């Protein structure tokens, strides 16, 4: 994707505060109308990136393209970026209608026309009957919806959502998540949704960009992140991942041996070049990775294509709709298996069991 064709493009964005590098060399292109989740823990640089896009912070390096135009010198009011703040930032001295009408008015709409537009937007988030209220007089969930209506009322090229659901309770969060997704689709707004909640990111986004310590770790669809994490950070941040230290087998770039244990295989395209290279020189550890969901207990089917290993059951916990079993390999490495309640009939705590999982679900990561 060319930065001119993208709804939003960041090219080598960098920002430091004093000695700390908050964001370094972030290149990210969001397609027009696409919803990109920006996922990372607090301090990862997510908010810094948002503020650079909106124009409230000036990046030290890199370019920002909005709707095909280079915008990094433009003041915030000329960028046509709608932002929903974590604190909502509704104007306390204005009614909800005047809050939503604020943007259109500043962009030249007459007061009457802006008010009509505001009513239309409030109706779309289901709050028309509260139009004359003030922000203090409504609930947090309602404030959040007003903030979204206000941001979309300017028909923004890019919509930025800064942890939009973080201060709401679980039920409300689900409800607003789908409302937001629906609005985003119907306005076809190129959207960046900042969150630290991986479940939120995976359910809501077209693609997810994982950020750690100011650096982009991986950009991909939720499924790609889940099945083909690029590194150990993404693997353990997005869901749970078993990571077994292993050594490449000499001359066999797709085979890895656990210390004192069996050899495990992965498909060639699941082995990063760096790991494959180690099979020539021998030394150097890699990690054999697989999701707990793919690990089965018992004897594998006769067909080839499975990795197998023996382990001791340490703990069985009930997760509601499935079981999680903590296992220990000889040598002390722990791993998790998750599956349906059938597992219970197969294993008791303290049992020695056989495990297997498909070679196709095995990935090799560099520690």
């Amino acid at each position: 994707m060319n930065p001119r064709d993208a709804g939003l493009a960041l090219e080598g964005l960098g920002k430091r505060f004093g000695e700390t590098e908050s964001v370094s060399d972030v290149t990210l292109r969001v397609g027009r109308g696409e919803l990109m989740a920006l996922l990372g823990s607090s301090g990862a640089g997510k908010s810094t990136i948002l503020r650079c896009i909106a124009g409230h912070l000036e990046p030290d390096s890199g370019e920002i393209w909005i709707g095909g135009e280079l915008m990094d010198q433009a003041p915030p009011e000329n960028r046509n970026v709608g932002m929903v703040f974590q604190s909502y930032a509704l104007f306390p001295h204005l009614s909800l209608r005047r809050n939503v009408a604020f943007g259109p008015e500043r962009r030249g709409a007459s007061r009457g026309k802006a008010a009509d537009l505001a009513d239309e937007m409030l109706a779309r988030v289901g709050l028309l009957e509260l139009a004359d209220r003030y922000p203090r007089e409504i609930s947090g969930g309602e404030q959040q919806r007003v903030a979204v209506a206000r941001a979309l009322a300017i028909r923004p090229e890019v919509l930025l959502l800064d942890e939009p659901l973080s201060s709401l309770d679980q039920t409300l969060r689900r409800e607003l998540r789908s409302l937001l997704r629906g609005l985003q689709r119907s306005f076809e707004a190129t959207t960046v949704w900042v969150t630290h909640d991986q479940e939120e990111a995976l359910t809501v986004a077209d693609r997810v960009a994982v950020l750690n310590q100011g650096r982009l770790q991986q950009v991909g669809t939720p499924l790609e992140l889940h099945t083909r994490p690029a590194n150990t950070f993404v693997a353990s941040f997005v869901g749970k991942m078993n990571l077994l230290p292993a050594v490449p087998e000499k001359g066999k770039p797709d085979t890895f041996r656990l210390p004192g244990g069996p050899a495990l295989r992965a498909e060639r395209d699941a082995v990063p070049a760096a790991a494959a290279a180690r099979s020539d020189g021998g030394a150097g550890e890699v990690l054999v990775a697989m999701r707990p969901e793919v690990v089965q207990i018992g004897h594998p089917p006769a067909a080839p294509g499975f990795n197998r290993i023996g382990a001791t059951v340490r703990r069985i916990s009930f997760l509601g709709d499935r079981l999680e079993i903590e296992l220990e390999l000889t040598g002390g490495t722990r791993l998790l298996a998750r599956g349906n309640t059938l597992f219970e009939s197969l294993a008791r705590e303290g049992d020695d069991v056989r495990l297997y999982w498909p070679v196709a679900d095995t990935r090799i990561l560099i520690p």
Partner: protein
Amino acid sequence: MDRSRRRVAGLLLLPALLVVAVLAAAPIGLLFRVALYPPGPVAPLAGGPELDSFAGLLSAPYPSVALRTLRLSLLTTVLVTLLGFPVALFLSRSRGLSRRIQTLLIVSPLLMSVVVRAYGWMLILGRQGFVGETLAALSLPRAGLLHTETAVLLALTESFLPFMILALAASLDRIDPDLLAAARGLGASSTRTFLAVVVPLTLPGFLAGASFVLVGSLSAYAIPALLGGAAARTFVMEIYELVTISFDWPTAAAASLVLLLFASVLLGGAALLSRRRSARSFGT
């Protein structure tokens, strides 16, 4: 709150109510009583009751003095607001040691008696003072601002500025910076953001500061007496002279009550404005 708790609360308020009744309501009642005696120089405080003392306030010089007093009070408030706002803005954007030093500098004049400060202004504004000497040095006709209404206004503004700055800064501090970012993002220029968001949100601080400045300047004595003198007499100066020079206590009492009325109207107006504008948006 149920009824018994309400009663306890009422009982707890009783001591405070008594203090107010004795220290405020009773003297005001006494003022009324004195005002109803027949007025005149060295009034004997006998006879009546009659309203002649109030009627006397309608004739010269009182109406023009009242007008000047109100004018000074309102102009002082306008000036401290205009001068104080940029300082408050600067103050509220500073942090840490710099902020503490600024605050100290702003309140430091208050450590000095207002009389001393008024004498300071006399030195500056007088014919032989800084203003006069500067004019003379430039071979312009030597003139001073002393004993003019402008001199009083200048000194009142100087003396009330710290209160307005602190009141406005307190309001500015409470403005969430995200609100400004939001306004900019929605298309408001920085000037427009200032006018449409910052100014309205400092209303509570402005009203608190304005109430203080309005009433304070209305009842100021030392500054008008020392800097205005006969040329710019204020209501409080009139009252002082009625009491200590002409011994016309009934007229002095009536004038005091009128001054009290002015203050109440100004404060009431400010309170009404703050309730109407801010109850819904800022909470009470």
